[in-house]
C-alpha cells in the first residue's frame, strides 16, 4: 500500500514535470489566465438548453467566454463540487445550485457572496420567497434564481373523460377519484407514491404548510416530524394501504412503461413535467392536461416547489465579477430569459421577463392554451419553506425509510418513516457540530 502510494506520487511528480516542459496536451485547466485575452469561465450545469443560451452570450461578449460542462443531474454534481472545494482546486467558476442545496454549499464555504458585484435592483425581478432562497435571509447573495418548479396536477384528460371522472380539487376528492379509477380498471392508478423522490415529497409537505428547517437564534431547528408532514404521510400511507395508489418509484423503466400504456393516469409534478412526459411517452402527446394541485382546504391555492435552481459562483472562482455579470444577463434580463425558455423550456424565476418569454404553451400541451396562465396562478401559492445545511441526509433518510414504508404498505409505517427522518436529520446536524434547538 505504502509503496503503491509512493509510486503514484512519483508518477504525479513526473507528470507535473512533463506538463511544465510543455507536453500538457488536452488539459483545459483554469489556472494562469493571462491579463490580456478573454476571461474564461467554466459552468457546471445539467439544465437543458444551457449550451445554446451560453452560445448567445459568448457571441455578444468576446471578453467573457463561458464554457458549459454538462454534469449528472442533482446530487452527483454537488458532491463533486464539495470534493473539489475540500481538495482546494478543480471547482468550476459557475455552478447550477438547486435551492435546497444552497444552505449545504454555504455551510461548506463553496459559494461566493455576490452582493457587491450584482446590479442593485436585480432582487426586484424575483418573488420574495425565491430571492430569500439565495440569500438565506442574510445580506449575502449566493446566486441568482434561474427557474422555479411550482407543482401542479397532471392527468390523462382522455381517460378522465372516458371514465367520467372529475378533476379533483381537494385531497379528499383526489382519494375518491383514485378509488373510482382503480375500481373501474384495476390496472390503472391515479398516481404512485415514490420512495425515490424526496424532492417530490418535500413539495407535498411544503404545500401542507411544513417547513423542515428553521433558524432560532444561533441554532438550527428541525421540524420534519410535525403536524403538516404527518398529515401528508398518513394520507398517502392510507391510499397505499388501500391499494388505490401505486407504491412503485418514479423515473424507472416500469414507470415509463406505465406512462406509455396509460396505467399511470395522473402525476403530481411540477411545471417542467411536459418535457419529461414528452421524452418518456412521446405517443401520449395531446392526451394530457394540467390543473392546480388538489388542496387540503377547499378554495385554497397552496402549492409546493419541486426542482428549480439558481446559478452561483464558487468560492474558487478567480473572476467573480465577470461571472456575476454573466449570471445577471442569463437569469435576470429579457434576452437571457427568452433564451432559457426557447432552448431549455425552463420556467424562469424572473417575473419581469416571464410574461414575454412564456407566450406559448409547451408543445406537448399545445391544446391547453392557458397552460402558463394556470402555472402563473399556481406559482403565487408556493408556500414558504426553509432548507437546512444537511438536506442530503434528510433526503437519503427519506429514500431509506419510505423505501421500507412503501413495501410495508401501511399508514403507520409512513408515519414511522417521518419520525425516523427527523431523528436521522437531527443526529447528523449534531454530529456535524451544529447547535440544534429542540
Amino acid at each position, binding site marked *: 500500500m505504502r*509503496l503503491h502510494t509512493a509510486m503514484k506520487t512519483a508518477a504525479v511528480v513526473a507528470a507535473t514535470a512533463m506538463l511544465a516542459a510543455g507536453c500538457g496536451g488536452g488539459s483545459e485547466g483554469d*489556472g494562469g489566465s493571462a491579463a490580456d485575452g478573454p476571461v474564461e469561465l467554466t459552468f457546471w450545469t445539467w439544465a437543458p438548453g444551457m449550451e445554446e443560451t451560453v452560445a448567445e452570450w459568448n457571441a455578444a461578449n468576446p471578453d467573457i467566454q463561458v464554457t458549459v460542462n454538462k*454534469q449528472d*443531474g442533482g446530487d452527483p454534481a454537488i458532491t463533486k463540487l464539495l470534493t*473539489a472545494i475540500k481538495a482546494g482546486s478543480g471547482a468550476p467558476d459557475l455552478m447550477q445550485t438547486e435551492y435546497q442545496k444552497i444552505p449545504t454549499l454555504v455551510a461548506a464555504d463553496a459559494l461566493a457572496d455576490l452582493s457587491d458585484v450584482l446590479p442593485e435592483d436585480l432582487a426586484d425581478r424575483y418573488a420574495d420567497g425565491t430571492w430569500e432562497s439565495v440569500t438565506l435571509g442574510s445580506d449575502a447573495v449566493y446566486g441568482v434564481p434561474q427557474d422555479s418548479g411550482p407543482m401542479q396536477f397532471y392527468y390523462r384528460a382522455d381517460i378522465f373523460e372516458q371514465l367520467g371522472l372529475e378533476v379533483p380539487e381537494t385531497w379528499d376528492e383526489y382519494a375518491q377519484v383514485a378509488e373510482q379509477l382503480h375500481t373501474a380498471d384495476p390496472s390503472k392508478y391515479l398516481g404512485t407514491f415514490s420512495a425515490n423522490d424526496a424532492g417530490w415529497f418535500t413539495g407535498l409537505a411544503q404545500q401542507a404548510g411544513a417547513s423542515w428547517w428553521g433558524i432560532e437564534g444561533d441554532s438550527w431547528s428541525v421540524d420534519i416530524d410535525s403536524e403538516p408532514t404527518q398529515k401528508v404521510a398518513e394520507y398517502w400511507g392510507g391510499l397505499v394501504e388501500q391499494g388505490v395508489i401505486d407504491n412503485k418509484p418514479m423515473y424507472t423503466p416500469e414507470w415509463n412503461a406505465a406512462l406509455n400504456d396509460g396505467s399511470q393516469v395522473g402525476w403530481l409534478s411540477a411545471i417542467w413535467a411536459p418535457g419529461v412526459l414528452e421524452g418518456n411517452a412521446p405517443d401520449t402527446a395531446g392526451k394530457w392536461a394540467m390543473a392546480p394541485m388538489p388542496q387540503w382546504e377547499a378554495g385554497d391555492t397552496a402549492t409546493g416547489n419541486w426542482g428549480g435552481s439558481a446559478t452561483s459562483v464558487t468560492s474558487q472562482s478567480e473572476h467573480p465579477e465577470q461571472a456575476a455579470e454573466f449570471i445577471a444577463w442569463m437569469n435576470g434580463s429579457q434576452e437571457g430569459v427568452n433564451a432559457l425558455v426557447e432552448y431549455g423550456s425552463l420556467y424562469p424565476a424572473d417575473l419581469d421577463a416571464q410574461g414575454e418569454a412564456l407566450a406559448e404553451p409547451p408543445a406537448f400541451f399545445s391544446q391547453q392554451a392557458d397552460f402558463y396562465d394556470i402555472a402563473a396562478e399556481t406559482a403565487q401559492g408556493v408556500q414558504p419553506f426553509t432548507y437546512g445545511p444537511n438536506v442530503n441526509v434528510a433526503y437519503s433518510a427519506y429514500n431509506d425509510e419510505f423505501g421500507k414504508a412503501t413495501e410495508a404498505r401501511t399508514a403507520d409505517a409512513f408515519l414511522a418513516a417521518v419520525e425516523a427522518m427527523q431523528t436521522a436529520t437531527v443526529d447528523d446536524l449534531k454530529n456535524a457540530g451544529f447547535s440544534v434547538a429542540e
Partner: protein
Amino acid sequence: MATLTSSRPAARPARRSAGLTPVRERAQRPSFWPTAILLLGALYCLFPVLWVLIASTKSAGELFSTFTLAPSTHLWDNITELSAYRDGVFWRWMANTALYAGVGGLLSVVVSAMAGYGLAKFRFAGKSAIFNIILAGVLVPGVVLAIPQYLLLAQVGLTNTYWSVLLPSIISPYGIYLARIYAAASVPDDVLEAARTDGAREWRVFTSISMPMMVPGLVTVFLFQFVAIWNNFMLPYIMLGDDRLFPLTVGLSGLLNQGASQPAMYTSVITGALLSILPLAALFLTLQRYWQVDLAAGAVKA
C-alpha cells in the same frame, strides 16, 4: 544475433506442449452435462447482449411498450440521434475512451514488463518485500484508491485533465504480478547469461531479448488493463468535471441521470452501450488466441 536465434528453440517446446494438450482432449466425445451447463452459462452471458442489440433498434415510444424480444427498425435513427446529441459529444467520449484505454494500457504494459522482469530476474535487497506489497496491491480495489488519488492530483492541479485518468491507470499491480510470472517462466537465465557474456548491456538484454520472449504474456497484460480502463467508471467519474474529457462510461451514465426535471435518454444510452462494446468485441476476437494460449501457459508454469 547469435544469442537471438539460439533463444528461440528454448522457448518453443514449452509452448508446443501447452498447445498439444487440448488436441488430445478434443478426441474424446463431449459429455452431455458439462456441455449443457456451459451452454447455459453462454446463454446467461449473451442474453444481455442480445437484449441491448434488440432494444437499440426500438424508438423511445416502443422501448417501453412493445415485447422485449421484438426487434424494430429504428437502429439507424437512434444512432443518428445519439450522434447529433450535443454536436456529437458521444464520439468524443468514444475517442477519449480509446485514448485512456489504449495509451493507459500501453504505458501500463511498459511499466509492468520492466517491473515484472526486474522482480523475476534480478536479486536486490527488499525484493520479496516489494513483491509482497505489490501482491497486496492486487487485493486493493481501484475504487478504494480513487478518492485519495483525487486529493493527491488536486494538490498538483491535475484533476479534470487527461492526466488525471491516465496516470492512475498506468500502474497495475496485477499486471506487474503477471509480468513477473511470465518473465520467470519464459525467459531462461541461460539466455540472459549468454547475452551478457556477449557484451550486451542490461537495457539491450531487456529490449532485444527478454521483451520479445515476453510478448505473448504482455499482450495478456495489455488486454486486461485495456478492458479494465475501458470499463472503469469510478476513477474518471471522480476526476473529471469537463464532459469533453469523459470516457463512455461516465458520459452514458450522465445521459441517464438528467435530474428529475428532464427525461432520461434511455434509447440513446442503450444505443451508446451497444456501440461502446463493439470495439471491445473486435479486440477480443483479434487477440483471443494470445489470451487463451497464455492463460494456459501461465497456469502450467506458475
